[in-house]
């Protein structure tokens, strides 16, 4: 087991190095920080002095190495626009994004898992085909178009839900207010999460339902409820967990667009602002962070997978 964990970690390390190289390369491609500092009164000599101060006179790999050491110490550089440390900007916007993504994931799975099981149990019936067809709608509707429709319906026409921000300006800041603002963005993200997961859950449960031990459980006469929930579902959870782990980067991508539309003050919104303002240290800080999180999530998924499934060879 320990050998397996070490093996997985060893595989993750080159990917981690690759992530930092790619991150640094994109940032270098974006232009040197000097160009962004040039003002009408900057002299050649001042620029040169600044270049030496920033270490830009050294070869590429030395610069990369210096940058990497800084990153390891938690120093992601400074925003070109606000001069704030990138790590501080990320830290203060991480909460809302985690809240949004986490809630959406939970709601999405709460929709997908029961429907997926229902569909699998009633396989190849009209109800099954209808549910699967509906799930395709969930993946085929662009989230921003759904947002527009929702905003039109629930904010403009009915006036039920707020369409921007995380709390009412000047209003009470209670939990109810937060949930109020969460409903629409979460619902939209959850619909697309559910859309893609219904089919995964369905096929995972289908596969398990054909296994011998499920047939044995059924023939013991313990009833459909116990057969499905005790024997089939638990085993079907293994592939589902893996798929969920792989969806985190996609989920973050979705959050970028949703946060932009709903002015949700999270990582996605500052990233989008940084992209339009060409604030590369912030963009690449966020990219680096999310890539590392994804990598860790995959690593944990692999390990959990091995812990849960005794048939996996280490």
């Amino acid at each position, binding site marked *: 087991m320990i050998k397996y964990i070490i093996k997985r970690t060893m595989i993750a390390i080159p990917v981690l190095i690759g992530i930092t190289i790619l991150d640094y390369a*994109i940032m270098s491609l974006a232009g040197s920080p000097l160009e962004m500092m040039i003002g009408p009164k900057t002299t050649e000599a001042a620029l040169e002095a600044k270049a030496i101060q920033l270490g830009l006179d050294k070869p590429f790999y030395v610069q990369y190495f210096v940058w990497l050491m800084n990153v390891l110490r938690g120093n992601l550089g400074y925003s070109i626009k606000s001069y704030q440390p990138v790590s501080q900007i990320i830290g203060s916007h991480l909460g809302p994004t985690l809240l949004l993504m986490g809630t959406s994931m939970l709601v999405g799975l709460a929709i997908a898992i029961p429907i997926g099981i229902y569909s699998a149990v009633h396989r190849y019936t009209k109800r099954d085909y209808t549910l699967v067809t509906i799930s395709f709608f969930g993946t085929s509707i*662009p989230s921003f178009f759904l947002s527009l429709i929702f905003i039109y319906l629930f904010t403009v026409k009915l006036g039920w839900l707020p369409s921007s921000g995380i709390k009412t300006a000047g209003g009470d800041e209670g939990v109810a207010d937060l949930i109020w603002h969460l409903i629409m963005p979460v619902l939209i993200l959850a619909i697309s999460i559910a859309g893609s997961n219904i089919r995964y859950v369905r096929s995972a449960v289908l596969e398990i339902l054909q296994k011998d031990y499920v047939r044995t459980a059924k023939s013991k006469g313990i009833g459909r409820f116990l057969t499905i929930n005790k024997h089939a579902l638990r085993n079907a959870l293994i592939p589902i967990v893996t798929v969920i782990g792989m969806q985190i980067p996609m989920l973050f991508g979705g959050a970028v667009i949703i946060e932009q539309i709903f002015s949700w003050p999270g990582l996605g919104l500052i990233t989008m602002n940084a992209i339009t303002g060409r604030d590369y240290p912030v963009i690449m800080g966020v990219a680096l962070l999310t890539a590392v999180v*994804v990598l860790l999530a995959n690593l944990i998924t692999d390990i959990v997978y091995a812990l849960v499934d005794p048939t996996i060879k280490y």
Partner: protein
Amino acid sequence: MKQNSEGLEYNNSTVKMVIGRFRKHKLAVASLYFLCFMTVLAILAPIISPYDPNKVSTSFSAPPSLAHWLGTDQIGRDMFSRLLYATRISLFVGFATTVISTVIGVVLGLIAGYFGGIVDIIIMRITDTIMSFPYILLVLVAAAIFGPGLWNIILILGFVDWPGAARLVRGNVLSLRETNFVKGNIVAGMPNRYILFSEILPNTIGPILVYATSVFAITILDEAALGFLGMGVQPPTASLGNILNGAESITILTSKFWLWVPAGVIIILLVLSINFVGDALRDAIDPSAKE
């Protein structure tokens, strides 16, 4: 796939069987007809569109009428003509991106799976690295650096989209390499190039096709999202995404439906029908792997 895993390429009867199974999916057949219809409309856009899509007229934001079937936009351009051209651009972006990313993915996947060893490790680690980045973030950053524009968007999406195909092909090659007909070829001393492209590739073409349909669908969604954020194909060239960009304004959202609803509906219908076709194709090619 099962019945010819030991056999040769997809011969005529296999193709017939696949078509036969595909036809049982009514929704997919209808989707295929719809896609063909939209493709023809898109190709013929310059002939059938009633107006020049970029020609400004004096009827600003006019609602749908006999002269302008889907109304006009804020600067008086005919929406029906713009939508035709937008569909043309979006389908083109989707198609070109799918071709680029599939070719890259297939070649790298074939090489990684067939040669194994250090080549495999390097290619797979690069694949993992790219897959770790949130996809839309990479695309947005690349669009910001290289500048948004038709060909840049195609190249960016194409170069970011290939890892999935590479993984899929590699997996298939790994299992095909163990089959007797490939082993036979190796023993017979056939050149690697021949084994890869004439023996292994044809036997993995089915899954690649299915995967390509999903890339096609995702690309159309991504182009739309990029356009919506103002980072995609740039105006005045119309794309389904940048038409929707206008709906960020509250007056358009609330009182000028013809400016945003049709473009959204076209996106949904295109993506939905591509997904239906892909799903039926998966079923038709590999009936043993019933979802």
